[in-house]
C-alpha cells in the first residue's frame, strides 16, 4: 500500500459539477487533493469570516441607526506630515504594509513547494516583520485616538458608537495579526532548522520535505489581509 492517506486513486477523479457531486457523496473524505490540515484551516477561516462579518454588520447597524453624525474617518485618521494634513495616510500605509506581507507570504509558499529551505524561512521572517510593523502602527493609531478622547462609549466628534465599533473591529483584527506573527515565527524557525526535511513526523509536518505547514500558515495570513480589505472599505473609506 503506497498511498495510505487516500481511499482512491486521485488521478481518476471526475471534473466539474459531476465531480463536485461525486466528491460530496463519496466515502471517507469529501475534499480530494486537499490534506486534512488545509481543509481544517479553510473551515476555521470560514467560521472566522462569520465572526468578522458579524462585527461589520453590527457596525453598519449602529451607524445607520444613529441620528448623530458619524465621525469623518478621513479627518479622524489624518496625520499632520510635512506641514499639511494627509487624510487617512496611516491607514493607507498600514494597507500597503499588509499587502506587501501577503506578497512575501505568497513567495514563501512558492519556495516551500520547491523545498527551498532558507528562502522559505527568510520570506516568512520578512512576512512576520511586516506583520509586526502593522501591529505597531495599529498601537500608535489606538494611542493617538485614545489621547484624543475616543472611548467605547463616546468621542469628541459625533456618534457615540464610533469608538465601540472601532476598538472592537480593529482590536479583533489586530489580535489575528499578532497570532499570525507568532505562528509565522514558529513555523519559520522550524523550516530554518530543517525540521520539515528530516524523516521524522511532528505535529506540523509529516517529514521528508512536507512543507505543507507553510501553505496552511499562508492561508491564515492571506485571510488576515483579506479581512483588512473589508475593514478598510467599510470602516475607513465609507
Amino acid at each position, binding site marked *: 500500500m*503506497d498511498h495510505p*492517506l*487516500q481511499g482512491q486513486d486521485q488521478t481518476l477523479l471526475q471534473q*466539474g*459539477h459531476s*465531480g463536485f457531486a461525486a*466528491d*460530496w457523496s463519496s466515502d471517507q473524505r469529501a*475534499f*480530494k*487533493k*486537499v*490534506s486534512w490540515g488545509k481543509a481544517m484551516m*479553510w*473551515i476555521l477561516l*470560514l467560521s472566522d*469570516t*462569520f465572526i468578522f*462579518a458579524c462585527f461589520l*454588520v453590527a457596525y*453598519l*447597524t449602529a451607524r*445607520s441607526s*444613529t*441620528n*448623530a*453624525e458619524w465621525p469623518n474617518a*478621513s479627518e479622524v485618521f489624518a496625520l499632520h506630515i510635512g506641514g499639511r494634513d494627509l*487624510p*487617512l495616510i496611516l491607514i*493607507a500605509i498600514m*494597507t*500597503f504594509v499588509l499587502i506587501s506581507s*501577503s*506578497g512575501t*507570504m*505568497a*513567495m514563501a509558499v*512558492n519556495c516551500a*513547494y520547491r523545498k527551498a529551505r532558507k528562502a522559505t524561512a527568510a520570506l516568512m521572517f520578512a512576512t512576520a516583520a511586516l506583520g509586526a510593523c502593522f501591529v505597531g502602527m495599529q498601537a500608535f493609531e489606538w494611542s493617538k485616538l485614545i489621547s484624543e478622547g475616543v472611548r467605547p462609549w463616546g468621542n469628541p466628534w*459625533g*456618534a*457615540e458608537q464610533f469608538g465601540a465599533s472601532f476598538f472592537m473591529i480593529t482590536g479583533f483584527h489586530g489580535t489575528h495579526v499578532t497570532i499570525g506573527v507568532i505562528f509565522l515565527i514558529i513555523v519559520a524557525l522550524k523550516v530554518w532548522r530543517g525540521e520539515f526535511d528530516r*524523516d521524522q513526523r511532528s505535529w506540523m509536518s*509529516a517529514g*521528508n*520535505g*512536507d*512543507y*505543507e505547514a507553510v*501553505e496552511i500558515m*499562508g492561508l491564515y495570513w*492571506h485571510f488576515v*489581509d*483579506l479581512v483588512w*480589505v473589508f475593514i*478598510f*472599505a467599510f470602516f475607513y*473609506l*465609507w
Partner: protein
Amino acid sequence: MTDTPHALATRHVAHDEGQQHPIKLYFVVWVLLFILSAGSYWVDYAQLQGLLRWSLILIFMVLKAGLIIAVFMHMAWERLALIYAILLPPLALIGLLAILIIESDYTAGTRVIELGQGAGAPE
C-alpha cells in the same frame, strides 16, 4: 536518502496535494493589489462623494478580495467540492445584512420620534 515506508508515503502525498505556479503570477497579482489599494486610497484623497465613491470602494474591494482568494489562497485551482463548501455559506450574510438594514431603519425612526433629530451627539 533511505526510502523508509514513511518516506515513500510522505513524498507521494506531498506530490499529490501540492500546487506549483510560476512566480511571475504572484508578482503580477502583488502589483495589481498595490494598484487597487492605491485606487481605493485615491477615492478618499480626491474626496469623491455619493454613488461614485461607494461604487468605486466596492469595486476595488471585490477585485482585491477576489485576487487574494483566487490566486494567493489558491482557490482558483481547488476542486469545486472545496470551493462551494467555503464560498457559498457566506452568501447567508446577505440575509443578515438585509434584516439588519430594515431593523436599523426602524431604530433610527423611533429615535427621531422619541429623542428628536441629532440625539446621541456629544454636547
